[in-house]
């Protein structure tokens, strides 16, 4: 019992298993209508069939390709524009209102426009992912530079450091912390862009499959795909967190070693 008290992940797993069991029993007893809420065993069966028959792989490939490309391009674009806006006032004057507007609106409304401009294949999905990620990263970089600790800037300047030293020793590490802090959210955004883009118009991808499942009222497939997307985002989320911990190890290392 004490082991259970100490292991948070085990308690969560047990709670999830209890919920799934209750759902399964209620569905089998007819309390829940299987048309709307099929039992977990049926959802699993549909998912396993998708994998064993190999039909899911081309969809997975499409969604992953769009998400990954969107994440990488969005990160690079957000970092470059964030640095440019923070360091060049003219660029900031032009860019900040546009980014503010893009940040304020639900950016997924751009999906139909990207389909018109770029077609229903991969590029329109990548474009939506890029916009979602780039705006997020832009503000992380922009704020990271604007809110940099000015005492550190003064410290480096009084030691004789110029612009390059400031960039290397203060601005880049400070911005890295901000960008990595938003990396987990960016991963979710990249996936959102790809799936929503596929949902609007596509020939393959998890979003396309979701749209198909919804149009055929296939609740088991819909739920299976939702769980699959959640599982993949969770894996990427854990990966992003590992990268954050590795690159920001100075932030996470021992708080219990202080001496007086």
């Amino acid at each position, binding site marked *: 019992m004490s082991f259970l008290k100490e292991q948070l992940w085990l308690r969560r797993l047990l709670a999830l298993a209890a919920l799934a069991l209750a759902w399964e029993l209620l569905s089998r007893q007819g309390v829940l209508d299987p048309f709307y809420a099929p039992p977990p065993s049926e959802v699993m069966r549909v998912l396993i069939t998708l994998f064993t028959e190999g039909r899911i792989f081309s969809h997975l490939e499409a969604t992953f390709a769009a998400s990954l490309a969107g994440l990488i391009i969005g990160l690079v674009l957000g970092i470059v524009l964030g640095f440019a806006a923070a360091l060049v006032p003219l660029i900031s004057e032009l860019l900040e209102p546009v980014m503010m507007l893009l940040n304020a609106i639900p950016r997924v409304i751009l999906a139909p426009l990207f389909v018109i401009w770029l077609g229903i294949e991969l590029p329109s999905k990548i474009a939506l992912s890029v916009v979602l990620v780039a705006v997020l990263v832009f503000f992380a970089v922009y704020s990271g530079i604007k809110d940099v600790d000015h005492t550190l800037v003064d410290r480096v300047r*009084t*030691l004789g450091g110029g612009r390059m030293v400031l960039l290397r*020793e203060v601005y880049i590490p400070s911005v890295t912390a901000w960008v990595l802090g938003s990396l987990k959210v960016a991963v979710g955004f990249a996936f959102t862009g790809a799936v929503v883009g596929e949902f609007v118009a596509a020939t393959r991808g998890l979003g396309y499959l979701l749209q198909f499942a919804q149009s055929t009222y296939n609740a088991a497939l819909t739920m299976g795909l939702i769980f699959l997307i959640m599982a993949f985002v969770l894996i990427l989320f854990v990966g992003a967190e590992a990268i954050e911990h590795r690159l920001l190890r*100075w932030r996470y290392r021992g708080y219990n070693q202080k001496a007086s």
Partner: protein
Amino acid sequence: MLRVFDLVLGYDQEPVVEGVSLDVSAGKFVSLVGPSGSGKTSVLRAINGLLIPRSGRIELNGGQESLGFLFQDDALLPWRTARDNAALGLRIRKMSKSSALLEADAWLNRLGLEGFGGRYPHELSGGQRKRVAIAQILALKPKLLLMDEPFASLDAIVRTRLTQELLAWVEREHLSVLLVTHDLEEALSVSDTVYLLSQGPRARIRNSYPVAIPRPRDIFAARKHPSFTPLLEQLWQDMFDEVGAPKIEAMK
């Protein structure tokens, strides 16, 4: 070592300080005291090149490279270890990485931080962080130390110990110091001259007070010197006159 003539500083319309002149001779310890907001820190920032004066002149033997600035905050890079922070100034001055780190280790050891070089600032106590900041500055072998209430955030024991250690170092190495502080007793116990800045804005030097206590000094023994209490009372009285507080006699 340092001469400041008719310095005028300001951030907006009205000057913060107006016509400040002071002198720090080689090997002398000088303090600048004054009411809060009188512009003491601004004077240090102007000497260090962080603030451009509206007018006036700053003459500094040896140029900016001869200066070492100890901030009120630790101002250590949180993403660098104590060793890397201590070596930062040397690296900026183009010393090779291995030599700079060796030199940094030597300074950390000298300041009682042996074995702490691999720790990040958040893994150190306030006093240890301050020692790293001192190592960073002393490693550059400055001729003039500018100190902006460097130990104000520390508890009384650590603060007293660090002040005494730094004073001993300054006397042994014949460094010149310009210390900004609001602690009048501390200023008198360590300084050869204390300048009192008037209430701002448009603050100016109200008076200077030579402190004739022999060196080397112990900050506790200095407070028992016959000239200490009369000087302290005079300084307090002048400070009270500036901020409009009651006379010392009335408070006794």
